[in-house]
């Protein structure tokens, strides 16, 4: 019989994120090369891990064709120099791809089937624009199962503004400006860089090296945001300034059973407590993280008040605000995305989940007063995903989060 095990997050890294499109730093870099370089960086940072001990590799991408096709987990494992005995597979849950890689590998570890797994995701939105090659079933429309508007994420964000009139454009803009400022401050303090794997990039001016996120706009002001166009609706509220930009990037993490981590001398940055995924109406996919978080909390026997650190994916500012309102959390609560989020850093769909985890893990290391943290995100076609983590550095009685 397989024996149930605790699942730990050993480490996570990512490539710097690039702006999608011809002018972006990764335009001439393959998507699979991004995930491979991230994996090599992860393996180099964990030299104690014998490569043949990796039981499986799960890599997510939303558009699984071309350089994001061919069963990414397997191809990336081979290209990253893992022994051929290590298997791998590909995952797709759109924006929650990497998060699902983590929970799927975690499930196998928890069940006792695996000791060690690699989980991550990649999205090269420049080479693979959202929805490329999709062929939605005509029944969606004929039977009014899913409105065509539900396939355009910007329109779903506008709809959140309609549904919750208290979520104003001004609140969205302010949240976005602060996200930019928080990321800039985190960069200045050197919080982000340690988990970045530099990537050699080809360009019209020769080889270069990508060492930081490309989409950041620290100079953002409320006035500047107010003037931006609302591409999804005339006189709408969603702009390029209060949404995450189209982004290229890859993330990857190393998961283990607590016993295997101990035996191999691997560091433990987080312990997985619970996770949950949930579905909502596709037309308001942004609220997906609310039910998924409720599920995860319930399974963990926790309440929202037990969470001391939040890493929420900022697909759209309005969508994060809907979550905060639901749980009665202030827009500027310092527990929420203290180093900023996807609005500034970028959101390479299937890669973002592990970025949230890597950033939460880095905060855990600095915050022994925090016991529990949440990573959560919305997903296209009306879903949400949430994972609750425990801080191994937590010291009982040191403050908030102590039960």
């Amino acid at each position, binding site marked *: 019989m397989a024996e149930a095990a605790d699942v730990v997050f050993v480490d996570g890294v990512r490539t710097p994120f690039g702006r999608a499109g011809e002018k972006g730093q990764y335009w001439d870099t393959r998507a699979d090369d991004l995930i491979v370089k991230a994996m090599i960086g992860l393996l180099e940072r964990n030299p104690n891990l014998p490569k043949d001990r990796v039981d499986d590799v799960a890599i997510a991408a939303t558009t699984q064709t071309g350089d994001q096709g061919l069963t990414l987990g397997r191809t990336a494992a081979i290209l990253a120099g893992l022994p051929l005995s290590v298997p791998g597979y590909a995952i797709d849950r759109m924006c929650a791809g990497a998060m699902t890689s983590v929970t799927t590998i975690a499930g196998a570890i928890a069940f006792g089937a695996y000791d060690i797994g690699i989980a991550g995701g990649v999205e090269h939105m420049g080479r693979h624009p959202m929805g490329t090659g999709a062929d939605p079933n005509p029944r969606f429309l004929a039977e009014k199962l899913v409105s065509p508007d539900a396939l355009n994420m910007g329109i779903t964000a506008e709809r959140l503004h309609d549904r919750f009139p208290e979520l104003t454009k001004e609140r969205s803009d302010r949240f976005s400006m602060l996200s930019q400022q928080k990321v800039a401050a985190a960069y200045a303090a050197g919080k982000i860089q340690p988990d970045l794997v530099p990537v050699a990039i080809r360009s019209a001016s*020769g080889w*270069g090296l990508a060492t930081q996120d490309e989409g950041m706009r620290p100079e953002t002001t409320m006035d500047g945001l107010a003037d931006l166009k609302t591409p999804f609706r005339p006189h709408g509220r969603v702009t390029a300034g209060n949404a995450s930009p189209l982004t290229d990037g890859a993330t990857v993490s190393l998961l283990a059973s607590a016993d295997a981590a101990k035996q191999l001398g691997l560091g433990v940055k987080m312990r997985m407590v619970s996770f949950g995924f949930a579905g909502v109406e596709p037309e308001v996919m942004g609220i997906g993280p609310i039910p998924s978080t409720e599920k995860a909390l319930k399974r963990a026997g926790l309440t929202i008040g037990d969470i001391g650190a939040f890493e929420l994916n900022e697909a759209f500012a309005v969508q994060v605000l809907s979550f905060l309102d639901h749980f009665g959390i202030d827009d500027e609560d310092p527990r929420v995305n203290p180093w900023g989020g996807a609005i500034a850093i970028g959101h390479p769909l299937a890669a973002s989940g592990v970025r949230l985890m890597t950033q939460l893990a880095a905060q855990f290391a600095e915050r022994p007063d925090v016991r529990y943290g949440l990573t959560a995100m919305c997903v296209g076609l009306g879903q949400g995903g949430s994972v609750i983590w425990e801080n191994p550095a937590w010291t009982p009685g040191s403050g908030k989060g102590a039960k």
Partner: protein
Amino acid sequence: MATDFSKLVSLDPDEVVTHSLVRDVTLPSGKVLALVTLDNGRDHTRPNTLGPNTLLELKGVLEGLRDRAAKKEIAAVGITGKPYILAAGADLSKVDQMADRETGVLMAKLGHATLGMLSELGVPSFCFINGLALGGGTEIALNATYRTVDSSIPALALPEVFLGLIPGWGGAWLLPNLIGIENALEVIISNPLKNNRTLKGSQVLELGIADAMFGPATFLEDSLRWADGVLGGKIKVKRKNEPGKLERAVKWDVAIGIAEKTLKSRIGEVAKSPYRALALLKAAKNTDKATGFAAEDDALADLIAGDQFRASIYAFNLVQKRAKKPAGAPDKALARPVNKVGVIGAGLMATQFALLFLRRLQVPVVITDLDQERVDKGVAGIRSEVDELLANGRIDSDEAGKLRGLISGTTDKADFADCDWVIEAVFEEVGVKQQVFAEVEQHIAEDAILATNTSSLSVDEIGSKLKHPERLVGFHFFNPVAVMPLIEVVNAKKTGDIALSTAMVTAEKLRKNAVITTDSPGFVVNRLLAKLLGEAMHAVEQGTPFETVVEAQKPFGFPMDPFVLLELVGLTVGAHVLDTHHTTFPERFFESKALHELADYGHILEKDGKGKVTGYDKKALEIVAKHRPADATPLSADELRIRIEDGLADEIHRMLEDGVVAAAEDIDLCMILGAGWPFQMGGATPYLDRVGASQRAFGDTFHHPPIRGVE
């Protein structure tokens, strides 16, 4: 200081320029490295090359970086290439059009002035050898302060000596001072002469050419991190092969002496470039860089202006280009697919064929002979060759299993029924060959192709008894079959285009170079060797000392002298070849009665216990003396040399008049690939033109203008 390179630049207005792109890279420490990427804007099938415009652009870029270094804007300079390629060396496409020695000097100086800057930037320079590096590409790396190499590069080499040049952009001085004299001799002289052997990444590291090696997946990232470590002092670069005082005082001259001796015994003293390289390496022991580079300028200019380099480039282009697009080859689409091969015969030659077809075509091969015992022996022999390939790691066990399964033997020619291609390797006699083909033709499909490996018989005559003579083609291999790259494909009068096309496509699949010839005696290689060997045997029969004969042919620079060659091919075979040619062309080709008797006796050369030639066998000399006619006239070395030169020129001229091959280029290609005639001769015709033999023999030259230097 400011040399005018315009004369050089104007040589090629259409140069494919390799651009020097620059980007600043911030290293982990915060230091800035200016990274130069060499990129000609084409894909990997058109490697970066270094022509005059390319060098001038790089020079300008490096001058700019030197200024930025002085302003402390950058802490280092890196240089690397486009994917898979650093640089494939100097652009030699127009070098044969240089009108004078001075242009050659400019080419040497521009290379030095440009590449030399990599050590004069005021900050350290790093070459990240990311891919193919040949000649000048390798010298870019050598001129840098530090080097890293990608473990997966296809090749790094200094092949200049192979082409009749020397590494003249710093290589000849820098390399021995970096990796020691013995290693440098290997890279600069031995490897080019060993069929242009190249180095893999691990050898580049081991020899000390590179200071560090990284895997391909993150080569540039790792190299940049390493460079940061070197700049910050965290990484200390140790060069274990760098020559010390002791090496310079003791080992250096000894190594040069040994190398010179080896060279003389291996290739003689005709080829100039190895000896120029040797002289430069010798001097590099105790000269400074400026002196070393000046000596390279001189040597490079001399060689570029000389005959041998022009002939070498001509030969190189034949082997690289013409060999890949054989003249007169019919449309490839006509070729029949070859999905099963039959080999008639189970002897040594037949089993060599069977193994080659098996390995390259990966289709069923069936061999046949007169009795089961011979067939079984043949099949067992091939299977044991397969085992050997497996043991040597040349193939894996799955492929070995596949090959063992694909070979079979039979005594029943009915088993050839479904063969698409049947080749014979039976006794060299028309009747025998006619008979085996007639027998096979009863069983095989109407459109199956027949091939004969005859070296001296008429293909049309062999095919004269066939119901379908158009399916027969000559397919003449050279021994040893696995090694020699040439096949003479004989397009006999009756040979049809389908058979010819199938032969050409099959030769390519066998990874051989095929040249199409008519059905004429000796085709190309044996006819010219018969000329040469006939003259040699005739001369000794006339009382010319063996030593004089050897002396007479020395200026050609052949890979071996006529008597060594005769012993290699076998004296019986040699005598037979002379007979055949004498029978057809009695007025131009000598037969040799002495050679027949020598064949019966067994040898010409006297050898010591280790097989080293020590002289001529006394009995052999007696046999030759016995055949001396009363009116014999010994020849002087010069007289004989001129006879050979003029005889070859005349014979080649006749062959071209008769259309044996499409052009003089094909004769040269055959002699280079089939007889190992040297690049510096350009095969045969450039040499014959430049020594005046063509003029003497037929009042013209083969090439217009002749392929020769401007010295």
